């Protein structure tokens, strides 16, 4: 397998998109809603941001379009996306990298606030 390290660090959007795909295939709006729900609406992906990021992730082979056809009654124009094994490995590596950083910070006595780190700039 390709080494995951050259792909790091991920941008926050990329991280959230990969995270949204961990437990299954989703279509574009599904990703947006998953990220919003998971971050309690603190991270709201715009459609343009999502797809330019998806384009990049697809080009890096971290994500691929799923061959799954939408369920009956679903909008047939929708495409579904899923993690590639490489994507899963990169997500894993990025999580380890972030975890290591956080541990370093904790050891210096920097405590996490009440809000998650990715929500600070809001």
């Amino acid at each position, binding site marked *: 397998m390709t080494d995951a390290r050259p792909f790091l660090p991920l*941008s926050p959007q990329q991280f959230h998109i990969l995270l949204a795909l961990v437990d299954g295939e989703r*279509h*574009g*709006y599904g990703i*947006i809603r998953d990220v919003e729900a998971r971050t309690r609406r603190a991270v709201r992906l*715009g*459609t*343009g*941001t*999502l*797809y*330019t*990021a*998806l*384009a*990049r992730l*697809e080009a890096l082979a971290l994500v691929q379009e799923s061959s799954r056809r939408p369920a009956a009654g679903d*909008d047939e*124009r*929708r*495409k579904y996306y899923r993690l590639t094994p490489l994507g899963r490995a990169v997500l894993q590596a990025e999580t380890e990298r972030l975890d290591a950083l956080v541990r370093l910070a904790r050891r210096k006595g920097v405590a996490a606030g009440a809000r998650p780190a990715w929500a600070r*700039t809001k």
Partner: protein
Amino acid sequence: MTRLAAALALRLYGAALVLLPRAVRDRFAADMRATVRARLHDASRAGVPSVAALLARELLDLAVASARARRGVRHVPDTAGWQKRHLAVSAMLQDLRYAFRLLRRQPGFTAVAVVTLALGIGATTAVFTVVDGVLLRPLPYADPDRLLLLLNGRNGRLSTSFSPPDFRDAAASGPFAAAAAFAASSVNLTGEGEPQRLQMADVTGAFFTVLGLQPREGRAIDEADVAAKRRVVVISDGLWRRLFGARAGIVGRALRLDGRPYEVIGIAPPGLTLPGTPDVWLPLVFTPENLSDKQRGAHYVGAIARLKDGVAIDQANAAMGIVADRLARAFPNTNQGRQFLATRLQERIVRGVRPALLVLLGAATLVLLIACLNVANLLLARAGARSREVAVRAAVGAARARLIAQFLVESLALGALGTAAGIAVAWAATRALVALAPAGIPRIDDVAIDVRALAFAAIVAAATSVLFGLVPALTTTAAAFSRAIGHAGRGSVGASGTRARRVLVTCEMALAVVLLVGAGLLVRSFERLSAVDPGFSADHVLTFHIALPEAKYPTAAAVRQMVTTVVQRVGALPGVARAAAVFGLPLDSDFSASSSFTRTGEADSADAPSAGFRVVSPDYFAALHIPLRAGRLLDERDDEAAAEVVVINEEAARRYWPGRNPVGQQINVSVRLVTGAGTGLKTIVGVVGDVKFGGLDLTAPPEIYLPYPQQPVDSLTIAMRTADDPLAAAPMARAAIASLDPELPLSDVRTMESLVGRSIAERRFTMLLLASFAAVAVLLAAIGVYGVLAYLVTRRTQEIGVRLAMGATPADVVQLFLREGAVLAGIGLAAGLAGALAAGRALGSLVFGVTTTDPATFAGVAIAMALTALAASYIPARRAARVDPMDALRTD
């Protein structure tokens, strides 16, 4: 309403996807649209403002993400700059939410403003769409800038027809990569259901090369087809759909055209409409006889050419000029004074409709401007009520720029709503325009709202939002910053606001006057034109075309026999008073021919007289009620065996036999329309009244009428005068002809009245459109005047109370405000009439029978506008007179 807003938002977003880098767009555009559709669907449950907010957020996100993707930036650097932008954006979003909330709280104001804007933006966008589709968009041919139409002129008059040898020589003059000739005519199709008449174009081998077009299926006609005289045909996309339901496998099959089988070798792409709108293209073969120098006078082919790379159109004209001079010296009879010129095909195609379309675009822009002024006025009124809020915010430290920005965001929000509604208006209006537009506007069928039109609407909307938002923003904030907070107590914008409103209304009046004068001039032109006597009586006349195929009617005698029988049968039908055959029906652009001729004792020369060439059967003049002025009409005795005779019209008599009696004179006509036509000297036996031929607005040309038996043309019109509704006679005529030849189709079945109507349809269309613009403009201006006076009345309630208490009568008060209205109207009128005098020149080619400074029109408009302004002032003035002095004095 929300559904409509969501649908419009989706279209806008779809259009904005062009911002994305190409690769991303190609891969994801459809999916992005599906995602945004789902988001809009969810947002639309919360109402229009959420849809608008979502759209704004998504468009912003798309713009930022696209820019980032284009730069290849992966991470947003978390710098101070980003923070600042972020703050500015969230402040703007906050303003936007606030603006929408305000708009929702004042539904009356919002509705009036949105409807006003929608009318302005919708009208402008619709007209722009038509102008863009007809005038601006390049022709659907390869490199249309280098595509030329060749013109052929003599004595300053340019025509599009060449003789084959002249075409050959002009085409070989050097500057062209390729050139092709074409001739339009029609052909009978049989063996595919009912026999029918098809529009046909004969084209030389280079035709498709010059246009740079490939057939959508099969191949194009090429030089080899022409050289081998192959019976091959390229059919139009339209015919392919109509006849074969767009089925595959049509290429290779045979079509029977005029009784002969032709192999279908290709299907043309849908955009190919040259010359006219042909159904089929066939190879045009010139015989050596066609190309001989003797035929230089026979002008019947059109010519297109493609410029070589690096050659300018002027160089082409110079090169052709050298050839023309050489031909003029070698063949003085036919070519003396003859020029060859080239013009861009696109310019030539749209030449006829350009002035009207540009005037309409100007008019729509004026309507938009008036709409903006009106909304600015409404905003000013509302800003007046908010001056206290502005003053408070200024006092607690808001920067003026920030306050102005907030006002602008509000007008942008209003503009966005107006645009959304305006796009709906434009969509409906464009469809109506296309449906109502007269035939003959080139490319009108392809006109539809598209990305360019939406972009235009968006730019217009943004510009107008700033335009109508800026005045109130500046005035209101200026008031707040120039005065201490306490003085803003009476909830007024004070003198500057009032002055601004007066100026705005005066401008509105002036613009409305300009539009009304323009509309008035066109209405009067149309009246004059409708009253023009065409020289014949158009009521109760049915006309249709027939064309006898050569395969079945090979000789002049056969043609003559058939046409005579058709005329007899049709004339004997019940309810038909007279029937006649005619080649060269008035006001019918499809058929026309003209020829030069010489009078007794004259040699042929470049200055030989020329006249329209009509071939008619004896009853023609009686059927159309064309009066005899001198001599006799043509009759049954003038058959192929009798001496050759002609009848001329008064214009020909006046022009070519001035002061003499033409009856008894002889002429020699150089052109023969058919083989078997009489070639001898022709004696003039009569003079008939003039008939409008090219259009009611043109003078009648000189004309020569030849008796049908002596010129048996095989493609002509049958005209019949009926006792009752002429169209009701059509089935009988069709049956009568089917009984003679079941394979002979009737085409262009029309009444003479519809031909007259069609000849003025374009003017009628322009007039109606301009009149409706003027009506909207006057309505908006009246609302503006009313609005200002109503506002003045409210502002001066206290003063009115004092006046009434001091003994002024209600009539005095009414008069006071009517005077205010009269001053506004007077200034507006004066400015508007001056503007109309200046703008009138644009109407130059569109008026008929009146000058662009027609005093009656100007006076009528002035009176109408003054009355409108007085009526609009009277309502608030009445209200002022009913003020209760005690109440008034108690108001703050």
